[in-house]
C-alpha cells in the first residue's frame, strides 16, 4: 500500500531516437504534476461470444487484444522549462540557440517537409512509487507523444494565473522495472500573469493605453488529433498489440479570450470589418526565462456580449489564419534548460 503522493514522475526532455527506443536517464527530468493520478495501462481482452459453432451463445475463451492506453495529463504552472518542452514536442519544428540560457524557436511542422513525416518527436515517461527492491510501481512507458495542450491565463493571484497542461498518449510499450534513477525534482522557473510584458491581439494592446484594463482571461489550445497507430508490424507487449506510430490528422489551434466592454471597444468592429493582425503574448521573468507566442494572422470569429463575475464582458473566439510568409504560429522560449527535444 502506498499513498499516491509518493508517486514520482519523470519524462524525457530530450527526444527518443526512435518510437521504440526509450530515453536514457541523462535525458529524463523529474517534475511535479498537478494531475495526481498515475498513467494507467489498460490491456484489453476479447472473447469468442460472437462466434458460432460452440453450441451456445456464451463466451468460452479469452484472447489478448491490445493495449488501450488512455491519454494522460501533465498539468503544470506555466514555466519556461515546461512551455519549451510542451511546445517543442507538440509542434515539432524546433531551432535551438545559445549556450545557457537556451532559446528555442518553435513552429508547427509541415507534413510535406517534416523529416519524420506526420510524426512528432517521442519521449519516455517514468512513474515510480518506492522504486527499488520492493517497488510499488516502477515502469517506463516508451513512445509517448503530446496530443494537445492548453495554456490558460487569467486575472488571479499567484501561480494559477498562468497554467499549462498537456494531453499525452503512449503506445503501450513499457519496461518494468524502469532501470531509471530519477534525478532530484526540478525547480522550474515559473511565470504568472504579473510577468506578462506584451499582450496584443489584432491591433488591440491589452496592457497599456485605452485597452489596458480590459483583459480578463485567455485560453489557447492545440490539438494534434492523432490517428490510431495500430498496423501490421506495430508491435506487441505481453502478447497484446501496441501502437507503432502517432500521426497527426487535422490539427486545430484555438484561442478564446474574455475582455471587459468599454466605450469605444473595437472588438466588434474588428469582427465586422474582418480585420486581421498578429496576436502576441509575452511572459518575461528575467533575462534567462521568457516566452513569446506569436499568432501570425488572427481574426475574430465570434464576439459575444456576456457577464463575467458581474462585469460586462466580451467573449471572443479567434480564428487563426495561416499566413503565406510566416505560417500559423511561432513560439520563442528562453530557458536555462539545455537539450529540450534534441
Amino acid at each position, binding site marked *: 500500500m502506498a499513498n499516491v503522493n509518493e508517486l514520482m514522475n519523470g519524462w524525457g526532455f530530450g527526444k527518443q531516437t526512435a518510437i521504440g527506443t526509450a530515453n536514457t536517464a541523462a535525458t529524463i527530468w523529474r517534475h511535479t504534476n498537478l494531475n495526481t493520478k498515475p498513467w494507467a495501462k489498460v490491456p484489453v481482452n476479447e472473447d469468442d461470444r460472437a462466434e458460432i459453432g460452440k453450441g451456445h451463445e456464451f463466451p468460452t475463451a479469452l484472447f489478448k487484444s491490445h493495449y488501450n492506453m488512455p491519454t494522460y495529463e501533465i498539468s503544470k504552472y506555466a514555466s519556461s522549462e515546461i512551455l519549451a518542452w510542451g511546445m517543442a514536442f507538440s509542434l515539432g*519544428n*524546433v*531551432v*535551438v*540557440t*545559445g549556450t545557457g540560457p537556451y*532559446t528555442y*524557436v518553435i*513552429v508547427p511542422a*509541415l507534413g*510535406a*517537409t*517534416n*523529416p519524420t513525416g506526420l510524426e512528432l518527436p517521442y519521449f519516455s515517461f517514468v512513474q515510480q512509487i518506492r522504486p527499488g527492491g520492493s517497488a510499488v510501481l516502477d515502469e517506463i512507458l516508451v513512445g509517448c507523444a503530446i496530443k494537445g495542450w492548453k495554456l490558460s491565463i487569467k486575472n488571479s493571484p499567484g501561480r494559477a494565473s498562468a497554467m499549462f497542461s498537456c494531453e499525452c498518449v503512449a503506445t503501450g510499450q513499457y519496461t518494468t522495472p524502469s532501470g531509471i534513477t530519477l534525478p532530484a525534482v526540478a525547480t522550474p522557473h515559473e511565470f504568472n500573469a504579473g510577468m506578462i510584458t506584451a499582450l496584443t491581439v489584432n491591433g488591440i494592446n491589452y496592457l497599456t493605453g485605452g485597452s489596458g484594463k480590459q483583459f480578463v482571461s485567455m485560453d489557447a489550445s492545440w490539438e494534434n488529433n492523432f490517428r490510431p497507430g495500430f498496423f501490421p508490424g506495430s508491435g506487441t507487449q505481453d502478447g497484446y498489440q501496441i501502437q507503432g506510430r502517432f500521426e497527426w490528422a487535422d490539427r486545430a489551434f484555438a484561442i478564446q479570450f474574455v475582455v471587459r466592454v468599454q466605450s469605444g471597444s473595437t472588438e466588434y468592429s474588428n469582427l465586422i470589418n474582418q480585420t486581421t493582425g498578429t496576436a502576441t503574448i509575452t511572459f518575461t521573468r528575467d533575462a534567462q526565462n521568457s516566452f*513569446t507566442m*506569436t499568432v*501570425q494572422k488572427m481574426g475574430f470569429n465570434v464576439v459575444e456580449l456576456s457577464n463575467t463575475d458581474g462585469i460586462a464582458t466580451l467573449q471572443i473566439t479567434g480564428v487563426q489564419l495561416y*499566413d503565406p*510568409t*510566416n*505560417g*500559423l504560429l*511561432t513560439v*520563442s522560449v528562453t530557458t536555462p534548460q539545455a537539450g529540450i527535444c534534441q
Partner: protein
Amino acid sequence: METVFLESPQGDEIKEVEATAVKLSPYLASGWHQVPAPAKHETVVLAAKEDK
C-alpha cells in the same frame, strides 16, 4: 548576432540565418529545419546578409 544553420526541405541548400523568431519564422514555416554547422563553411549562403 547569433545565427543558426537551416537546411531546405529538399535538402539541397543550407543557409545561415539570424537566430530571431522574426527571421526564422518564414524559413521554419516553409519547412526549413535546423542542422549542425556544415564542415565547408563557404558553401553556406548567409541569409541575414541577403535580407539586407
